[in-house]
Every structure is written in structure tokens, then in C-alpha cells.
């Protein structure tokens, strides 16, 4: 679903889906792949290869920060 939205939907759709998915699923490592896919398809990189992966890196950081936060949240009534 996320992959399809990256290919076919506008940026605001797939970025929202990506960060919501990272928030909802624990250890959503697929989010890193999705971020890297966004960078590969739409990003224009210059310089060293790894530094151009802005959304891949952002997804990684988001996963790191969201994972401990999830302990303090509950997703049911």
C-alpha cells in the first residue's frame, strides 16, 4: 500500500502514510526502505552516496524516537 502510494500518489499522501505507519507499528523497518525508495525515485543527490538519503535517514530517526514513546501510549480504550 505504502509502496503504491509512493509510486502513484502526491508527496503529501505518501509522506503522511509513511510517518503514520512508523508511529503505529513497532520497529517499522519497512519505513526505512520506503524512505530510501522516496529518495531514490524523487531525490536528486549530490556528494557522498549516503548523505543524500534524506527521507531514509528521517524514517530511521523517527523509528528510533517513536519506539520508546510507544510504551507510554495505548491504542485501545
Amino acid at each position, binding site marked *: 500500500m505504502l509502496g503504491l502510494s509512493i*509510486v*502513484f*500518489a*502526491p*508527496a*503529501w499522501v505518501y509522506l503522511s502514510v509513511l510517518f503514520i505507519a512508523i508511529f503505529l507499528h513497532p*520497529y517499522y*523497518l519497512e519505513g*526505512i*526502505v520506503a524512505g*530510501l*525508495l*522516496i*529518495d*531514490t*525515485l*524523487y*531525490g*536528486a*543527490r*549530490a556528494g557522498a*552516496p*549516503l548523505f543524500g*538519503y534524506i527521507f*531514509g*535517514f528521517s524514517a*530511521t530517526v523517527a*523509528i*528510533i524516537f517513536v*519506539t520508546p514513546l510507544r510504551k507510554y501510549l495505548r491504542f485501545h480504550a
Partner: protein
Amino acid sequence: MKTNFHKSYRRINRDKERRLTYIFGAFIFMALVVTLFKSPILGLVSPLWQGQNFLARSFKELSLMIKDKNALVEENILLKEKLVLLDSLESSVRNYEDTQTEMLELFGRNGVGDFIAATVIARPPKTLYDILVLDAGEVNGIRDGARVSDPVLGELGTVVEVSQFNSKVSLYSTSGRETSAFLDRDDEPVTLIGRGGGTFFFTVPKDVLVMPGDRILLGSIDAPLVAVVEASFIEPTDSLKKVLARSVVNMHKIRFVEVR
């Protein structure tokens, strides 16, 4: 009482470190894999984009066919008005280009030269940071740094990344990108700063006359049209005038481009 508080705390820290290493390791590994397979990934996705564009065009044509008569009449009037505007803009651009070409020939420099035609397969808002993805790449002769322009209206940007069958164009309006240009009215040199979404910002001394609709030309020998002034602002205490400009090409609707 004996507690194992310190031990647990250490274990928690170790777990955190392990988790961090694991996630960053995953990122680096995946980034390396994606870097290796970048060209095939683009090659796989570009037919999907072409299919999407084809379907979008077909649906648009179909919707035009089933629209009611009144809506079509209204649209026709709007399109005629737009056509008149575009005609005047195009003739102005053509006149300017003819003069430029004559001037360049006088000085022994080639004007237009050869170009490679390419179709835009992904554009904003699908792409981020004012990037266009073209269906032509290395095999078609496109090189890094090549200039990209609209066939009629003006200059768009430069090629920043080339794979075998695709290439990416960074528009001059990409946020933060600086481009040397000059105002056509009085040859005042300016540095256009991209603001994203096809818009630019620049400053000029407050004595320089800038009016909405003034043309801004690229600072190269053939000086193609890049943008048109939208508005200017000045505070009484400022020594510089802030000017907002817009690209002459609607980047959301570009279908074909020329790469030089």
C-alpha cells in the same frame, strides 16, 4: 537489602545501544543495497509512471466527452482567453529568441544548437523539491549538468542525475538554489533564490525600477527567459527591495522538455 538496580540499568542501556546499532545498521545496509540497484529501480518504476500518465490523459479526454454542453461552452471561452494570452507571450518570446539568435550569430556563437526531446514522467506534486523525472537517460545522450527548457516558454533547470534510461532535473526554483540572472528592463544583475513551487525571491537596490510582469533572463550568453516578476515589497527603512518572481512554465503541467 541487596538490589540489582545498577545491573538492570546497565542492561537497559545495553539494550538501547543494541537497538540503535540494529536500526542504524539496517539503514546503512538498505541504503547500500538501494544505491547498488538504483538504476534498475528507476527502470522498473518509470513504465508505471508512463502508464499512469497515459491513463490520466485518457480519463481527461473521456470526461471531456461526457461533459454537458454548457460546461463545454464556458470552458471554451476560458480556453480562448488563455490562448490569446499565451499567443502574445509566445510571440514575445519568439521575437526575443530571434533577436538573440541574430546577436549570437553576429558574435560567432551558436544560438539554439541541438537538443534532445524528452517526456516528463514524474513532476511535482508527486516529486519533492521541484524535481522532474524524464524518460531519457544516458543512452539517449543526456549528460549531467545539461540545461533543460520548455519547448516554447523558457528555461527550467539543469540535469542533476542521470541513469541509463532516466534522468532527473532540478528546477531553478528548487528551494535554496541560487541562479545568476538579470532583469530584462535595465540589465540589472540579480541572484534568483528558489523558494520551491516554481517561485523565486531576490533583492535589488531600492532605486531599481521593478514592475510586475518584468522579465528575468538567465545569466548565460543566450539569456533565455527564466521567470517573470510577480510583486515587489519595500519597507521605508530598507535599502533593498524584495522581489517575488514566478517561473513562466507551470511545472505541474509540463509534458515535454528539451535537453541541451
